[in-house]
């Protein structure tokens, strides 16, 4: 809570610098501005949602429904636009749908008291089903050019809207988690929700805000994804939740809640993006990329445990 970089984050920084150096030496085109922007753009929707997921997991909850909400929002957009709704109005409807989805999660978790793992798993299936019903077995495109331009072209110079949004949210949510009263409540509830309740914190309210925010940002990212690809299908963003949670956990956020930092998650995002990009430049297939990231995640869970074990043994012997 007080140190700038934890030992874990220092480790992440070292790994990041190593991947950067490796990539730069293997592929000279790696360090160009365009490649750096592309590298973010390829996974931009996931890494934006990962920022919100960080708060959710620090709060000792989980939201497995994010990718299905992305899919639902994208599908709804495709459906509405192809049914003749103006795109601007369709965007608002999709965001509202996201809020409704979040409200369903929030009520079941924060008011009824069902574990978020169960609720959001059910919604992962439910919202995905809705998305498939809307799009059927086809793909829906024909978006207005201003929509696809927003998704694909630079807004300020070569920097697209989604990338600006990512950095804005990184700073905003980082400040929220580490400097604000709301963030402190998120951390304390994640550490021990009963202590929080006995200290007069409104636990249900904090959880409600988080699940609403998570769903809203997911719906927004679904739209960004649709705009970037130019079309949507029933399986748009399928399985993204696992990549998103991987980024958060690799960033040193404890799956048990109460511990984690935005700096760590940012470093973890940088590592994953660079690894994927580097491996892509080396012509390694997507399957191998996924495998490498899997190994990285296991290491990220094992390593702190092994270190703690090692320290404990050293103390015992001393």
């Amino acid at each position, binding site marked *: *809570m*007080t140190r700038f970089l934890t030992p874990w984050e220092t480790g992440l920084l070292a790994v990041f610098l190593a991947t950067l150096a490796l990539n730069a030496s293997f592929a000279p085109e790696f360090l160009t501005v365009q490649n750096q922007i592309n590298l973010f753009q390829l996974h931009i929707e996931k890494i934006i949602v990962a920022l919100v997921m960080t708060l959710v997991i620090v709060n000792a909850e989980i939201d497995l429904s994010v990718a299905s909400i992305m899919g639902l929002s994208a599908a709804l957009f495709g459906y509405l636009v192809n049914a003749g709704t103006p795109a601007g109005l369709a965007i608002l409807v999709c965001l509202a749908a996201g809020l409704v989805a979040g409200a369903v999660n929030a009520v079941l978790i924060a008011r009824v008291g069902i574990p978020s793992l169960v609720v959001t798993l059910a919604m992962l299936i439910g919202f995905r089903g809705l998305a498939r019903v809307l799009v059927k077995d086809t793909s829906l495109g024909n978006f207005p050019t201003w929509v696809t331009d927003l998704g694909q072209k630079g807004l300020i110079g070569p920097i697209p809207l989604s990338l600006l949004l990512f950095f804005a949210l990184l700073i905003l949510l980082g*400040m929220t988690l580490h*400097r*604000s*009263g*709301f963030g*402190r*409540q998120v*951390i*304390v509830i994640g*550490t*021990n929700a*009963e*202590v*929080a*309740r*006995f*200290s*007069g*914190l*409104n636990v249900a309210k904090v959880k409600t805000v988080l699940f609403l925010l998570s769903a809203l940002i997911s719906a927004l990212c679904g739209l960004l994804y649709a705009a970037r690809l130019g079309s949507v299908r029933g399986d748009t963003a399928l399985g993204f939740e696992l990549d998103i949670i991987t980024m958060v956990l690799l960033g040193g956020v404890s799956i048990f809640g*109460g*511990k984690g930092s935005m700096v760590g998650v940012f470093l973890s995002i940088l590592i994953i993006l660079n690894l994927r990009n580097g491996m892509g430049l080396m012509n390694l297939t997507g399957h191998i990329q996924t495998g490498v990231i899997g190994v990285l995640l296991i290491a990220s869970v094992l390593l702190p445990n092994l270190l703690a074990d090692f320290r404990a043994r050293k*103390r*015992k012997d*001393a």
Partner: protein
Amino acid sequence: MTQPVLELIGLSKSFAATQALKDMSLTILPGEVHAIVGENGAGKSTLIKIMTGVHQPDTGTIRVEGQSVTLRSTQGAQEAGIAAIYQEPMVFPDLNVAENIFISNRAKGRIMRWSEIYAEAESLIAPLGVKLDVRRAASGLTLAEQQTVEIARALSLKVKVLIMDEPTASLSAHEVARLLDIARALKAQGVAVIYISHRLDEIFRIADRVTVIRDGQHISTKPVAEVTEDGLVKDMVGRALESFAVKTAANPHGETLLSVKDLSRAGVFQNITFDLHKGEVLCLAGLVGARRTDVALSLFGIAPATDGSITLAGQQVRIATPQQAMDLGIAYVSEDRRKLGLAMPLPIFANISLASLKKLLNPFGLIDRAAESAMAETYRKRLAIRSPDSLIEVGKLSGGNQQKVMLAKWLETKPRVLIFDEPTRGIDVGAKAEVHAIIRQLASEGVAILVISSDLPEVLALADRVLVMREGRQVGILPIEEATQERVIALAAGQATSERPAA
């Protein structure tokens, strides 16, 4: 001279930079009850962990019945004849009593002969003078009964030395009496009991000899008959404490601040009625299970009352959430620091500011960190919280200092009514005296104080009046002049000392 059953000779143990034990020697005789006392941090825990094989000493020798032994694990210690029970017993709720007793007894082989096991379990429990059905599931057992199961478990392993670590911290008065009877029964069987407790009166009731340790060193070992309470306390803290509990001259009671009438929560407690004045300390006494904490929780909005009225400063109020209680100026210092009171992995400052975060926010909702650390520093000094700064994790502090952090959190909310639930459970005599002094100080500043305590000497030392509860009912309010240990116990237990009501 009898052969000692356990000898510790010149034990030392360090953890990193701190020396937990220095040249500690101790001799335990068969069939004696040997009390060990010392402040928190004196080295008692380390000593227990060495005797039970959890830690290995850096130097020194352990002898069991004259034989030098190395205790590598708790299992190794049990094989050598040493076992321990703690204030929180370890029982498996889904197994029955007999299964719990023999859970770690591998001598029973692979095939269970149930009739034999039940008979043996009964023969272990009977001599302890306790009635306990060995076939019933452990899930409904009281804490005291769970301890009996643990003791029987130790006996099944044929232990020669049984360590009891703060066994009575969570027991009611008559459960304590029963536990002390069990200790006497063990003694009669020739088992040596090492008895560790902060409650000195128990030591005088049960122990044959008492050893004082301080700062990891052996200070004295004397027959109990030769020591006085004052002498023990002096040995423990290394100085004389002015008084166990400093009581200011009779408080001139101010106006009535909190008035509770016929307060009830269906199925939990009924018809609680009392007035609490400014500057008054009202103690809630009663046995464990008297529902005192439930009354406190209804006043704090955790489990609201279903009937009756609460009047605060002349206004009738409804309290349905902790936020409402806090807005009215009511604070509740919980008995369970770990589960309800403190966020253990977070630093001191974050725990102190927790209930008053709103005050520290700027217009953007960000915490004013300078103000927050100033707040923490103020309390660290004012309450003498022993820690180099307020960045230390609360979980790393001793029980007494944790209690002070929890107190600081609530003092910062500037409460009018402050409810303490077991404010000195599991903290050492020095910290206890400090907490008592703080409570009296607050009362003299006009705070109305409600204290729930199972420690009768504490109740009598602190209270202006004593409200006694039994099984969810109010059975009397005694002014302090009329409150004696005997009268309070008689009220709390009821006339006929009936069997424990079914849980």
